[in-house]
Structure formats: structure tokens, C-alpha cells
């Protein structure tokens, strides 16, 4: 089949750490503008899979194809420029930097800018155009009033929103969000779900969402993929997947017990 049909295709991706098969032969596709949930219990290998897609880890086997380009062996920054954005489960904010600067880094990086001579000639001030786009993204995520505050002063929930805004500022074709709602309260989670839906509908960004909060996943995604101990358990629409007895056993059984 032609990979051009899909935005992101995983073909038999495997990754192990020593003896642990963290990701075992995972294959699925995400289409442009689609929203897919990636769910599974703790240690299922979701974050590891994200790392394989973004290039922080190199899978031992299998191919990752994005937008018609085979990504194997490509460094993280090049993948990002192709249009893969992500947020991190363990927040990775830039200490000591203001929220607006976080977005400026993304804004410039997307176009591969950052030449020293431009800085030395004082040609790197933010343009009106850039400022406008950054403000729009801040507005979208709802953190405009935090723009000039250093992230050091922010709590976990706000840091997650900053990460989301930063990823969106790079205007990715696909957004990989790793448990964006952990650390947020109920109201904030609902707002976050709304933001993700807006991003998908208005900007046409595909979303691959890892999330333990199933009600939020249900709100956001069109399809879901279920992983358990590295392997793919099921895939289909959210309701289909949740009706699958195997999935109930591996995942929901655990949730019921809690």
C-alpha cells in the first residue's frame, strides 16, 4: 500500500531495554487531521513508542514513515521540522524562561532558523508576524495572561499547558500528547480537551493522544489503539475498542479495581 495515504505509519516497530520488550511489533497509521487515542496500562510502552517516533530512541526493528518520508535514523530535530510536535509525560520546560520565549523558540525552530550572524547583526528581533502567531497560540491554549511569567513560578498544570502551547507554536502536522491532563484538575482537563478538539478541527492538526483519563479520550479521539506490555491489543473506534473483552481484561479490569 502507498504510505502517502497516511500521515504517520508505524510498521512493526520494536524496542527493547535489556531484557524488557517495551514495544513489540507495533503497526498502525494516523491520517492527516485525524485524532487517535493510544491507551494502555502503566508500562505498556506508550511513551517508548512516542520516543521511537520522535527519534529520542532508535527502534531495533520496523519503520516509521511520516508524510511519505522514511524516518529511520533521522535525528530528532529534523523530524520536528517535518512536522512532528510532542509534549512530554515528565514535563520538559525551559527553566528560567518566560512562557512567551518558549513559544518563540518553537516559532523560529520550525523554520530551522538560528544563525549566529543574524544575531550578531541585531536581526533576530521578533517580527510583528511572529508576535501575532505566538499570541494567537497563547490565546488558543488560554494562557495569554501567563505570557511574560517565568515557568519557574508555574505549577505542574500550567507547565503542561505551556508545553502544549510550545508544541502548537511549531505548527506541527501531528501532535503527540503524552498524558497532557495528568496534574490538571477536572475543569482544566475539560478545557484541555476542548483545546485539543479545536486544534484538530480548526488547524487540521492530527493528534495522537496518550491518556489515562478515558472520559477525556472519549471526548477527543476518533479512533483508539490499545497497547499492553509492549504489544498491540486492539484498534478501532473508541467504543469498539472498549467493548473488546481482551481490552476490558487488561485495562478496564485494572481501572475497575481502583
Amino acid at each position, binding site marked *: 500500500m502507498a504510505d502517502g495515504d497516511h500521515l504517520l505509519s508505524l510498521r512493526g516497530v520494536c524496542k527493547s531495554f535489556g531484557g524488557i520488550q517495551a514495544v513489540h511489533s507495533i503497526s498502525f497509521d494516523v491520517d492527516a487531521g485525524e485524532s487517535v487515542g493510544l491507551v494502555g496500562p502503566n508500562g505498556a510502552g506508550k511513551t517508548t513508542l512516542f520516543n521511537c517516533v520522535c527519534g529520542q530512541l532508535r527502534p531495533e526493528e520496523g519503520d516509521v514513515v511520516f508524510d511519505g518520508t522514511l524516518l529511520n535514523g533521522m535525528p530528532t*530535530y529534523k523530524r520536528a521540522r517535518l512536522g512532528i510536535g510532542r509534549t512530554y509525560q*515528565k514535563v520538559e520546560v*525551559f527553566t528560567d524562561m518566560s512562557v512567551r520565549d518558549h513559544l518563540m523558540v518553537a516559532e523560529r525552530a520550525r523554520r530551522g532558523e*538560528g544563525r*549566529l550572524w543574524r544575531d550578531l547583526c541585531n536581526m*533576530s528581533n521578533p517580527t510583528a508576524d511572529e508576535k501575532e502567531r505566538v499570541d494567537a497560540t497563547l490565546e488558543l*491554549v*488560554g*494562557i495569554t495572561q501567563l505570557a511574560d511569567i517565568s515557568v519557574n513560578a508555574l505549577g505542574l498544570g500550567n507547565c503542561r499547558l505551556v508545553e502544549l502551547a510550545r508544541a502548537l507554536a511549531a505548527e506541527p502536522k501531528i501532535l503527540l500528547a503524552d498524558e497532557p491532563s495528568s496534574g490538571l484538575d477536572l475543569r482544566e482537563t475539560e478545557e484541555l480537551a476542548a483545546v485539543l478538539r479545536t486544534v484538530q478541527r480548526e488547524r487540521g492538526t492530527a493528534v495522537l493522544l496518550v491518556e489515562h483519563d478515558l472520559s477525556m479520550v472519549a471526548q477527543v479521539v476518533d479512533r483508539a489503539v490499545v497497547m499492553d506490555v509492549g504489544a498491540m491489543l486492539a484498534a478501532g473506534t473508541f467504543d469498539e475498542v472498549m467493548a473488546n473483552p481482551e481490552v476490558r481484561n487488561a485495562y478496564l479490569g485494572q481501572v475497575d479495581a481502583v
Partner: protein
Amino acid sequence: MEQFFGFAFTGLPYGCTYALVAVCLVLTYQATGVFNFAFGAQAFASAFIFTWLTQYKNWSGFEAFLVSVVAMGPLVGYAFDRLLFRHIANSNTTAKMVCSLALLVGIPSLLPVIFGPQNLDATATILPFFNPNVVYFTLAGQPINGIDLSAVSVTVVVLVLLTILLRYTALGLQMRAAVESRRLVQLDGVDGNGVVAVAWIVSSFMASLAGVLFAPTFGAFTQDDYVTLTVVAIAAAAWALLRSLPIAAGMAVFIGVLTTVLQGYISPSSFFYATILPSLPFIFLVGALLFLPKMRELDASRDPLATIDPPPPPIAAASRAPTMNRIIRTLWWIVFAGFCVSMLTWIPDSWTTVFNNGLTYSIVLLSITLITGMAGQLSLCQATLAGVGAFTAAQLATHLGLNLLVGGLVGAALAAAVAVVLALLSLRLKGLGLALMTLAAALLFDATFFNETSITGGPQGISVQAKWLGTSAFFNFNGHAMFLLSLGVLIVVVFLVLLVRKGTVGRNLAAMRGSETATAGLGVNPSWQRIMVFALSGAVAGIGGLLHSLEQQVVSPTDWNADISLVLVVLVVTTSVTTVEGAIQAGIGFFVTEQVLTTVLPARIGGSSLTVVLFAFGALTYAAHPEGVLEYQKRRHTMRFERLFFAKEAEAEERKAARAISTSGANG
């Protein structure tokens, strides 16, 4: 064959002392996460006191050994742990490295301050039954005397005892467990801090012992001899991946023996003997850094409990009353204008020199602001880069009659090129790996290019003449002309640094300090950013180096060797490595302090040594005040001043920030 063994046996005593220090490095790194650069300095300190006691106080070797090793070693180790490293156990690699570098710089400078300058000639051995002057037997044609015997036998005994301690005692088991996770050990009800303290005590004792065993193999010795000890130990520890004690010890002995074997076979007049042989330890170190992939992951935390550390407390949003800002800025300009006018009018020549030295040093220090302050990496070869710039310009002027300012640009370009090569070689390294690589580069330059008379004009250096500046010696070149020249260049460099900091590269580097993963994940190529800032830093150092040498009227290799590189880092870390004012305050502060102390204090104490000691003390606070202790005090005092006079205004600013944080997300 007999000849081979003869050469090899001569190397054994050296190899044994190297092995002791290599084992110390691995042991403390494993147990505490601190790579203690200062073990070589501790070894030197013990040897210094040991020799001082035997040579000048007529103590017996054994008595001196009890004081300088048995008492002093563990005491110093315990003090390091209790007063310093325990408090920074969970801080980052840079903070730990800065502290141990400050000790490396501070300890050897402290000794002459306390004891006065001494000529040291060690002849005593620590054990009464080994006489240094008696040849006990000959082995493969080599006479083996008491010094050799005691070095080898004491090392073997100590290493065997250490093995028993680690393998067969409960304490050893805990120490090995602490390697995995200090906190895990504490959860098991073991006193983790106690285990770490023992590691410090044991390794400091061994370092002291190594120092005292090492000294008599030289006879007359200086601090420089201990650089070799340190570097061989570091190289051996690197080949052991800072993990395996036996490999570290074995590698150290191997390097020691290989050195004497090569020395034996190679003709002393050959190029190889003069250049490659002294660089052997650095070659081993660079080899380990380049070819052992595990050395790239040194800083990755292996502590399974690292993630349970509470996140750092949120820092109160920096607020400052606008009126206060205006006042500070105005005051600053008044001081600056006053300084310029004074420099050109009433300040006497002796003090013009001091300030000119300070200004030119500031330029070199700004190159550290770029690398350490902005890229967050520690480079230990900035003086070398400055030297490359200065020597290039001086050589071009001597041989081609090139104008010094043009030559300076060529020199800066060359220094930038050297920096880029270094950055390329260490693309995969950061933190400790990068620091070691740059240190190796600095020492390699010292042993090769800077040791070549045709390049550096020998130990006394090349005299730099003002006439090389061009037109009638730059209008009667004197202190005032030098002041204007250095001030002009300093201002240009300050502007460049500020532009880079607020530009794209500066922002990317700041982001990389926070999270390199996330920065790369946005599409920034981290290696490229780093290469660019290394190049700029090299160029700035090169220009600063030339100007400083011009002020000194001589470029000498001792002005720009590895020791100076370390001092430079210590200086700027004390004031502030993140701001341009920090570099300027460090440069001027260093020379002013030195001048004041040399004038005020009796010559015996040595004003320059004391200045270095003072700054080293300042650098020890880096972990607590990464913004620089001077910067910290400055902020504290302006805050207090602000609270006193502009309380309302500041409060309003603060409330505005707090309100923004508390209402965030409400209108998402």
C-alpha cells in the same frame, strides 16, 4: 627482554601512585556522584606538608607520615563531605564540577599563603624500615631502592585492604549499594550519609598517601609534577568508565609502565620523546572520551529514585520597581563616566596598569560567559584559546611585520577554529565529558605547541611591542591609549554577547539548558548551536588574549596554560557567569584585589596566591548561588533597598504577577 623488564620496573612505583588516585576518583564518583578533580591537589598538599616537616622541621618520615597522611587525609575528606559536598549532593553536574575545580585551584594556592614559598626536596620514605638511599636488590638490571619498594608495597597493601573492605564487610556492601542509589540505601534504614562520608574519608586518605609516595620518586618536586599524577589518574578512571576499581588501578599501572618503557627505548633527542611522550596521559584521556560510547552517558542519572525528588520550589516572580531600575541605571552610568575620566587624568600609572589588565582579562572572561553562562557547558581551555590568539598575532608581527590588530583578527579566527575542532570532537559529550575533553586539550597544548620554542619563544615568551600596532606606535602608545583600545574592544564584545543572548541562538541555548530533549524536539539542532557558540567564544578569547598580552608587553606560555584556564573559570563563577557585568567585575576585581593584597600584606604571604584562594572560596558557593555569590549579594541588597523605599511599587508589580498565575486557565 631483560632490558624491557628493567624499563618496566622503573615505571611500577609511578604506576602504583597513579593507581591509588585513579581508585579514589572512581570510588568517590560512584559513591557520591562527584568527580573530584582536586585529588591531585590533595596529594600535593600532603606531599608538601610531609616534605616541609621532614626537610625543615627534622621530623622522621614516619612521624611526618602520621600527620600529613594518617591524620590529614581523612580529616580533609571528612571536612569536604560535611562542609561542602553533602550540601550539593542533589545539585547538577556543573555545580559539583565547579566545586571540585575550585578546590583544585584553591588548595595549591593556599599552601604558600600558610607556609610561605618553599623549595621542596623529598627524600624521606614513610616507613622506617625502607631506607631511601639503600639499594635492596637489582631486578632486571635496575637497582630497587627504598623509595621504589615502599611505593609498590604500600600500594599493594592498601588496595588489598580496600578490596576486603568493599567485598567482605557490611560497610562495603552498603557502599556498593549507595552506588545505585543513595536514597534507596537510606530507605533500607542504612545511614546513607555515613556511607558517603566513609567513601570520602577512605579516598582522601589514599590520595594523601599517593602524594607522599609520589614525591620522593622525583626528589625535588613542584605542583606541576602533580598535574601528571592527576591526568594519568583521570585517564585511567575514564577507561574504567568511572565504574570499575580494578580496571582503573590496572590502567593506571599500565600507563605508568608504558611511559618508562617508551622513555627507555626512544632516543631522548627525537621529536617523539620531546612531544608525544609528555602528552601520553592526555592521549589516553582523549582516547577514552572519543572511543568509549559509555562516556557520553556519564551525566545521565542512573538513580532509580531520581524521579521522586520533589521539583524545585517555584521562585517568586522577579519583580523590581521601575523607579529602582532607573536609579540603578543612572548610578551605573555616573560611575562608568567617572571611571573613564579618572583613567585618563589622575589615576597613577601603576593603577592604570591594574585596570587595563582587568579590562583585557574581562574580554577573555566573556568567552566563558558565552560557553558556561549561555551554553551551560564548562570549558577548561579558555586560556589556551586566548593563547592561540595572542601567539598567532605575535608570530605574524615578528615574521611578517603584520599589524597587531590585523594579526589579532587572524589569531581570533584561528582560536575559533581550534574551538570548533574541539566542539566537533566532543559533539556527543557534555557536562563532565566535555570538561575533561577541554582540559585534555589545554594540557595537550601546554605539552606540545606552547612548549615549542619556535612558537612561543621559550618560557620567557615573545615580547610584544606597541609599534606593531601600526601608525607611529598608535599615537605614542601608553597606558591611556591601551585603556581606550581595551575599553573599545570590551564594549564591542559586550554588545556582541548581549546581542547573541537576546537573539535566536541565545534563546535556543537557554532552552537547551532547560531541556535539550525538548529543544531538539522543536526542530533546533543542538550540536549546531553549540558549535556556533564555541566558535564565537574562541574568537572572543583569542582577541582578549592578545590584548592582555599587549598590556603585559609579552606573550608567555605560562600566562595561558591549563592552570590559568582553571583560574579563569573560578574567577567568573564567583562573580556571575550568566551576566556580562559578572565577567567585567571578575576581571577588574581580580587584578584590583591582587594589587591591594600585594601592597598591604607582607611579601611572605603572596598577594596573588591569596587572591586566587579568595576567589576559589567564592566559587565553592556556586551550588548554592549558581548566579554567582557576588550577584546574589547584589540582588539581596538591592531588594532590601527597594523594600525600604519603593515598597508600594514593588508590591504592585508582584501582585500583578500573582494574579496572572492564579487566574490562568480560567478563561481557556
